[in-house]
């Protein structure tokens, strides 16, 4: 019988996806297009947030949207109805988008000369956190009815995002959601995260979120890392 030998590997399991994600970022640099990956649970308001953001910024910024869904096109239809270029990726049962799928979405939007592309990831707080999509910024929504304990259950998601939008603030008075407790839990995982309390329904906080987005986009376009 052969002797058993030990091989040191030390290789990142996600290195293939990470390389494709890096290529996505480099490609978008050339056209000065910023890619933003929006993640949350189902029903926390991703599509509503995108529609609100379009309303807020469409005169200043050329926006496109990549919608990902397991098997439907309703979200892309809502976005396209506002005159915004949108492409729907059907993940066919997959629970997340990877950089390869995002590349296909970009191919479809390539000729549109956009400033900002927003990815609406599959509604899920687990899997999308593991896969780099190639986005320059990661943004997540947590809605008030979901509860302030979610950072304890899905720590990875909260640790990889640049922005947390706490949506459905109009429900706050009806719930025992504690914004200060949430903030402390999130910041201990991710001290650099920006947190905005918003309501897509009333418009609360949308100006602060819009200002953040305009600022990072301006910084992105100015940075000479091309």
């Amino acid at each position: 019988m052969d002797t058993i030998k030990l091989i040191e590997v030390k290789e990142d399991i996600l290195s293939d996806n990470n390389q494709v994600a890096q290529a996505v970022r480099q490609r978008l640099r050339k056209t000065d297009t910023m890619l933003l990956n929006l993640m949350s649970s189902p029903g926390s308001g991703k599509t509503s947030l995108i529609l609100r953001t379009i309303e807020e910024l469409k005169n200043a910024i050329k926006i496109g949207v990549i919608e990902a869904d397991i098997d439907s096109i309703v979200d892309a239809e809502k976005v396209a109805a506002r005159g915004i270029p949108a492409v729907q990726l059907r993940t066919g049962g997959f629970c997340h988008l990877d950089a390869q799928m995002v590349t296909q979405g970009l191919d479809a939007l390539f000729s549109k000369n956009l400033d900002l592309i927003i990815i609406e990831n599959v509604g899920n707080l687990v899997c999308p956190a593991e896969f780099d999509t190639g986005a320059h910024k990661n943004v997540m929504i947590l809605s008030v009815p979901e509860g302030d304990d979610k950072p304890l259950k899905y720590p990875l998601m909260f640790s990889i995002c640049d922005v947390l939008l706490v949506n459905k603030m109009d429900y706050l008075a009806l719930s025992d959601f504690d914004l200060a407790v949430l903030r402390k839990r999130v910041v201990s995982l991710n001290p650099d995260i920006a947190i905005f309390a918003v309501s897509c329904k009333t418009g609360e906080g949308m100006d602060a979120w819009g200002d953040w987005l305009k600022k990072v986009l301006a910084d992105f376009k100015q940075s000479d890392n091309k």
Partner: protein
Amino acid sequence: MHELPITESILNIVLKHAQLHNASRVVTVHLQVGALTDLKDEWLNRYFDYLSKDTKAKGAKLKIERMPLIAQCDSCQNSYEADLKQIGNLICPLCGADRGTALSGKDYFVKSMEVE
């Protein structure tokens, strides 16, 4: 559900290194996975058995080492191991300060493997 593409990546890495070392069979694969990641051992093993059945890695055992969540005290900079349940209530065992920051826990590595 993301265990399937993860398992495919693991298998590709394992087969590449088996080839590099002229191995005839992979016996054990050692993985290091951080405490913050949500990978279920049972599914990983099941998918690995399924995907590897016509390869040199058929029957290989996956040994999954969970890497702890390490936090750093914001006040005295001491690093300490933390429990996931403590997020938001981190207490430094050295100075007692209640502000700390997670440093690691996102590891995702094929560390080593045993081959014949």
